[in-house]
């Protein structure tokens, strides 16, 4: 595992995944960035590479109230259809309409232009559910990636 001050990097076989240190991650592969009192969500580099090129992204509209585990978006890739469960309880303030027009942004820039939703979490003291820090997520990813390589 390589790293620098801002990212952790994991190489498994021919694949290399990057994980910003300042984000939190859900086991389902979503990243979360706390921005003041709000939380931005997106798909991790591992999740986007694992699932392949994204054909379509369907976003739950702004204004929707989310509970933990509610679908915040679904994506159709060249391999699978995936429902993405929210790791945040709160209200969707904004969705990234750009990825509906150009879902490849999630593949190209998963931590930047490919963000999915911006959420006002309910209760700031513990707005995130079942989330991992970058190091814990990398350990999980390594286990999942190595298991898949053996199968």
């Amino acid at each position: 595992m390589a790293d620098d001050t801002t990212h952790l990097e994991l190489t498994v076989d021919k694949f290399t995944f990057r994980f910003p240190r300042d984000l939190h991650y859900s086991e389902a592969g979503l990243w979360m960035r706390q921005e003041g009192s709000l939380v931005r969500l997106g798909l991790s580099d591992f999740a986007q590479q694992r699932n392949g090129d994204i054909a379509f992204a369907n976003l739950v509209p702004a204004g929707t109230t989310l509970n933990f585990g509610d679908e915040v978006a679904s994506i159709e890739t060249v391999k699978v259809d995936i429902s993405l469960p929210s790791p945040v309880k709160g209200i969707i303030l904004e969705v990234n309409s750009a990825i509906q027009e150009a879902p490849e942004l999630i593949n190209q820039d998963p931590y930047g232009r490919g963000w999915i939703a911006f959420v006002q979490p309910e209760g700031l003291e513990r707005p995130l559910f079942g989330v991992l820090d970058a190091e814990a997520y990398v350990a999980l990813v390594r286990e999942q990636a190595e298991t898949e390589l053996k199968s």
Partner: protein
Amino acid sequence: MTQRNVWIVPCSGIGKTYGSVARESAFIVTEDLRPDKTRIMALSRLVPDDSDVRPDIRQADSITIDGCKLACAAKVVAETGGNVAYALQVLDVYRAHRELRPAGIAELNEGGKRLAAVLAEKVAALVDSMEEKHDA
């Protein structure tokens, strides 16, 4: 292969639905739509260093049809000295025709077959436009 013919070079990804769509569309173009203007090139034949078809790929323009963002067809043609006139991606065509969702590998589903047909029409139109430019 004359200067005015066009190579159609599809993805060689075996076991991939989008690769199958790419190859199916290439067959439709070269066998049904524009048999007298196009020829198919198997990507694997270009790969060996001592490939006997590399000189051929340099004799005419190519249209590559890739099944994923790795774009092996476009890269291999370019790296072996061919001219990629158009580099197409199956996914781009599917995004414009969401109702034609492809599935299956050895045997494409109906959506995959129809998507291949749509893609083949697009390639055929490009072949025609290349000929028109050449004649102009």
